[in-house]
């Protein structure tokens, strides 16, 4: 009963009257209404793991397993990093617990030619795109060495300034279009808080004016640090922000990996076919603190967390896989052991790293050599030498 073929419901962008290209149009006489605006909603897997077969995507067991493994890995990495942080072995970092389906579903929908432009709470997605765990540990322990890895040619590094990455995504997407790379599109993640930034709006507008092949995935996790979603913006949904740009707007259950996959897949297909951008709101929840520096008990209603625990994306996906006969307790146990080992290996590799040239930041100030930079590098190294001899 796989009907992914017929799933095109979110793509249309109804026009009650055509755009007026030479500005001849003026409003009709009297008072009238234009009601031709809409968004769509999608949930495929409910919180009990029941699938709505009508909208079930046509995914192989391998793909479904890959998706589940990624979500499990992400959660385990988060868990381990939290411990490392508490032990002072890495610095501040943002957990993505609860948001695995919103990050991994879209990543599964991407091909190697698509670009992944993230913010900082898409751990599972980054891992699926090949980012080594060791890199994340390096990054969150304050080393630029954590940023690059061989092969990550179409994934931008973590973007800290809220909303800024949305413009980079649109630029990349437009470049793909200009260069005729019709098999490439961009997936861009952002938070609910990011929708308040001017850059987000400019990105949405440029994307729609250029009909750039980009899919925005807004992880509405209900919070921007301590600010709840309803103080962030007054609109009932975030998806409806797409209407301002005549862009398809879709609200999906962000804890349903099938919904995030399907909506992204459809949007990517449309984007690659020249159909322009899509905005997807993935309704999810930040189940842990904002970052390890945050204390949510200051602002978070406990009952809210309780409700969302029941909507955890992992158990429901496991139940779905189990019901399909793809998953079992043994496989779960195996995966657990394997995941643990993988993380241990990464932590070991990370903690044995010593190849941090102190002057590395001078290497990449410019792509050309400038005397002033080299003078400062020499001065810097001289200072380090003097300090260690002083000590």
């Amino acid at each position, binding site marked *: 009963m796989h009907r992914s073929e017929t799933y095109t419901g979110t793509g249309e962008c109804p026009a009650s009257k055509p755009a007026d290209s030479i500005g001849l149009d003026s409003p009709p006489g009297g008072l009238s209404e234009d009601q031709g605006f809409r968004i769509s909603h999608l949930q495929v897997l409910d919180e009990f793991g029941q699938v709505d077969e009508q909208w079930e995507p046509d995914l192989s067991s391998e793909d479904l397993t890959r998706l589940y493994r990624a979500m499990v890995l992400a959660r385990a990495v988060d868990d381990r990093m939290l411990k490392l942080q508490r032990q002072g072995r890495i610095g501040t970092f943002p957990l993505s617990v609860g948001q695995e389906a919103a990050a991994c579903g879209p990543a599964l929908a991407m091909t190697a030619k698509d670009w992944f432009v993230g913010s900082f709470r898409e751990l599972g997605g980054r891992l699926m795109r090949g980012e080594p765990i060791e890199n994340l540990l390096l990054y969150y322990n304050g080393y630029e060495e954590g940023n690059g890895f061989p092969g990550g040619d179409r994934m931008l590094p973590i973007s*800290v300034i809220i909303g800024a990455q949305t413009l980079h995504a649109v630029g990349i997407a437009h470049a793909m279009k200009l260069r005729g790379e019709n098999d490439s599109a961009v997936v861009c993640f952002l938070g609910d808080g990011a929708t308040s930034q001017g850059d987000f709006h400019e990105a949405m507008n440029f994307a729609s004016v250029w009909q750039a092949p980009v899919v925005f995935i807004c992880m509405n996790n209900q919070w921007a640090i*301590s600010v709840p979603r309803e*103080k962030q913006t007054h609109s009932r949904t975030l998806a409806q922000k797409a209407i301002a740009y005549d862009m398809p707007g879709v609200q999906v259950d962000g804890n349903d990996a099938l919904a995030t996959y399907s909506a992204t897949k459809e949007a990517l297909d449309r984007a690659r076919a020249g159909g322009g951008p899509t905005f997807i709101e993935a309704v999810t929840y930040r189940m842990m603190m904002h970052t390890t520096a945050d204390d949510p008990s200051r602002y978070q209603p406990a009952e809210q967390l309780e409700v969302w625990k029941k909507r955890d994306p992992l158990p429901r996906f496991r139940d779905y896989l189990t019901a399909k006969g793809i998953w079992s307790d043994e496989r779960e146990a195996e995966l657990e052991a394997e995941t643990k080992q993988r993380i241990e290996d990464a932590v070991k590799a990370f903690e044995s790293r010593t190849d941090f040239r102190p002057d590395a*930041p001078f290497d990449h100030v410019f792509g050309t050599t400038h005397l002033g930079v080299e003078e400062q590098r020499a001065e810097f190294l001289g200072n380090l030498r003097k300090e260690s001899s002083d000590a």
Partner: protein
Amino acid sequence: MRRMNMVQAINLALDEEMGRDDRVIALGQDIGVNGGVFRVTDGLHTKYGEDRVIDTPLAESGILGTSIGMAIAGLRPVAEMQFSGFSYLMLGQLEGHAARFRGRTHGKFTVPLVVRMPYGGGVRALEHHSESHEATYAHIPGVKVVIPSTPSNARGLLIAAIRDPDPVVFMEPKCSYRAFREEVPEKEQGFEIGKAQVVKGGDDLTVITWGAMMRPTLRAIEEIQQHRKVSIELIDLLTISPMDGDTIAASVAKTGRCVVVQEAPKSFGPASEIIATINDKVLMHLEAPVRRVTGYDTTMPYFGRENDFMPNADRIRRAIEDTVDF
């Protein structure tokens, strides 16, 4: 007299001014219920309510732009940028509008707002959380830039900034937030914007610095004085702009030697302006080149390397000794 750290002292100043003048309001990201990510506004939300301590949407330009409007309409907004590293998002509003309404309306509409922002490195934070952007703000005519260095002067200067009729960029050295406590007098001492403070008189050399660099500088001076006799005058700039050129000139005219310590990248920073001021006013008194101890002209590295890149007591000490020995 109360012993408090800088976070508490800033909180006190906000509380005092909000209590004194109901035109004073605070706004920013997470400053309300959460009390700010550094807890600087802790308790104010409960005390003054959400109309006066406003959790805003996540938009720096929006925060400053609406603060400008509120100031024009008679309020005294104290806006917080969560980190100075995000503050360039509001530079258009600051330079284009906050700095200009007074001139643009021949004094009819003014913009008495304060924009507070933690700045600088040393707290093992993520990218964009450790910058020192004061030179950029100081280059804007019509904007005042103030950087305290201790709990007491933070409290006094913030009160002065809130009462000031002009837009004030108030940059808080976040690595000093909880680094130490000091006695903070019951009544505010009357710090004046535009005045540097001679923290310690001396005859042989002038050290000029501000904000977070005061602590390593004090340490460097202490170390030097443990092993040699040299009389060092220390100036805490406190106001970056408009700069107190007279205090600088008087000191350097006396000592003939000067070291400037700046956390920001070297080039085009405040140290250069200080050197230019010395050049303008007292060049012929100089017995040695002024030395700059500064950050390097690289992006602030991630925290794994930040300590190597920020000026430390050792570098400052050597610069002072080299200048004395020049």
